[in-house]
């Protein structure tokens, strides 16, 4: 890849537990180009949020990065000290969370909270930071921004609070925004507004966004490229158009297949059989094999690497940003047969 803002290589996050070490993120690699919106899609527990926390250096003990490299704008993050990470968090990488209702400190005014990163990172005075906070609230299209500076979080609706969170995350003009399920807790119309806002700010500021979601609708609306995660591994990587037009991995296909089609009359919604395996009892081969309609003997023996979907040749490091890859042996076989 020529131009990469953030690159994650072979990231493994490990949590030692009484029953042995579990790895919610197990060998994840991807890159984000400047100004790109990359969606990380997967079910709860697939390791999306863990990946984000690992990038931010916010894994809670005893979780830790066991292996892998995280390089952000030429800086290695995985082995950085807490103090050095602090200089990056909030200043060069902003983050917004799922629950706007509980992500704001109930005792501080909105203005103080938007001003906080400016005071921490830029050492602005209280007055200067508050003035900038008013501008930021205007930037996130908060009605009556300056007036609302001295209001408390409980005086805001969920959608407005998420706007505040975005203002906080963007206060120091970061290069990367990590949005962890930013619209999951909001109702659909507000969801649409917030995604539109993120998208427009992203274009205006040339921001790269790592958009974590389980909602394929969000992916379609807001992302350029998508990574599909399952059980701590990336199973498919492609542009959003490709994912929706030609999903290659059986899991991606099943996910898309379970989205109800409003045009067609269907009696039952389609589901994926079985359950996501627990992290301490993962199948030995492909992690999706037990639930896969197309599984073969090989799937239960070894874990498939990512294959290039176009020609079925195993992808090397020379892959381009636009490539479409999926981790399924069938792709390899198709290429051999065809």
């Amino acid at each position, binding site marked *: 890849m020529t131009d990469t803002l953030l690159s994650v290589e072979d990231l493994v996050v490990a949590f030692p537990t009484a029953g042995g070490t579990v790895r919610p993120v197990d060998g994840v690699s991807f890159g984000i180009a400047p100004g790109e919106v990359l969606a990380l899609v997967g079910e709860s527990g697939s390791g999306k949020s863990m990946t984000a926390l690992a990038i931010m250096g916010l894994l809670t003990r005893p979780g830790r990065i066991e292996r892998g490299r995280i390089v952000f704008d030429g800086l290695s993050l995985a082995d950085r000290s807490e103090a050095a990470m602090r200089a990056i968090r909030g200043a060069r990488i902003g983050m917004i969370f799922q629950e706007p209702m509980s992500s704001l400190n109930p005792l501080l005014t909105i203005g103080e909270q938007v001003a906080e990163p400016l005071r*921490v990172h830029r050492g602005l005075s209280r007055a200067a930071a508050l003035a900038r906070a008013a501008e930021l609230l205007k930037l996130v299209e908060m009605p009556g921004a300056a007036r609302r500076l001295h209001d408390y979080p409980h005086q805001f609706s969920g959608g407005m609070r998420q706007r505040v969170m975005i203002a906080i995350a963007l206060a120091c003009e970061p290069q990367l925004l990590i949005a962890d399920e930013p619209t999951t807790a909001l109702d659909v119309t507000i969801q649409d507004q917030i995604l539109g806002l993120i998208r427009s700010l992203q274009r205006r500021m040339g921001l790269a966004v790592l958009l974590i979601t389980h909602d394929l609708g969000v992916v379609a609306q807001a992302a350029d490229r998508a990574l599909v995660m399952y059980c701590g591994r990336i199973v498919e990587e492609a542009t959003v158009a490709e994912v929706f037009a030609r999903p290659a991995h059986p899991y991606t296909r099943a996910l898309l297949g379970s989205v109800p089609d409003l045009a067609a009359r269907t009696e039952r919604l389609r589901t994926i059989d079985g359950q996501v395996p627990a992290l301490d009892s993962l199948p030995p081969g492909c992690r999706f094999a037990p639930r896969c309609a197309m599984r073969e003997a090989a799937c239960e023996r070894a874990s498939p690497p990512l294959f290039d979907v176009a020609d079925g040749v195993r992808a090397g490091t020379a892959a381009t940003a636009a490539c479409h890859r999926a981790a399924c042996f069938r792709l390899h076989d198709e290429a051999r047969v065809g």
Partner: protein
Amino acid sequence: MKLRRYLASRSFTVGAALVALVLLVALTADVVAPFDPLKNNYRLRLGAPGAVHWFGNDSYGRDVLSRVLHGSRLSLAIGAAVVVLVGVFGTLIGALAGYFERADNVLMRTMDGLMAFPPVVLAIAIAAVLGPSTVNCIVALAVAYTPRTARVVRAAVLVTRQSEFVEAARAIGASHARVLVRHVLANSMAPIIVQLTFVFALAILAEAVLSFIGVGPRPPTPTFGNIIADGRNYLAEAPWICMAPGVAIMLLVIGLNLLGDGLRDTLDPRLRLELK
């Protein structure tokens, strides 16, 4: 925070009124007290309550009412000093233990060690070793009551630490100190305030105990405990000597406990639901 919300709690209103009454008396003792609390008058030795000496006279003929009024000062001052010390050290230890996992075991096992002794017994032992004086009495009581407060603070911090806004504060690059003070502690104040109200009451009771057995502030300085200690030898002939400070302690401690209950009800609606 609306005053009306607090006044809706009956225990808060009654408790606050009682505490305010004692506070008022302590502040105005110089003006209100009819006699000098230290002046002996052997002609009035063990005099019964009457029109002039409302609560009678003690074994040196001193006016019991004046002694109780003045005694409330030192008792309250000791209670307040203990609250401040316990508030500072209990919050510091509890906050560090609750926030930093590495510090938790060392700090809390030390607190557990101190908690192995009943607080009053521990305070008596410390005061006895340090010698009887007002300052030593305060130190002893602070050491005795800090562990329980640290435990309450730690529990509150453990809960608040899990909040999403704490993670969000970390995500903007705030330092641990900033997160702990501005986000975690600020949102854990309700149980701490309530706990400190109870510590106030307990400290006043315990001060009386220390004075009573002679390891508190030195006589003739009146404190509730000193007055009772003076009067215990004449309990049969002159019960009024112990009665007045006893009733004063009771009113103050009841007031503080009610105040604490009321504060808890108002500051923590979840607790109220569980209790009812």
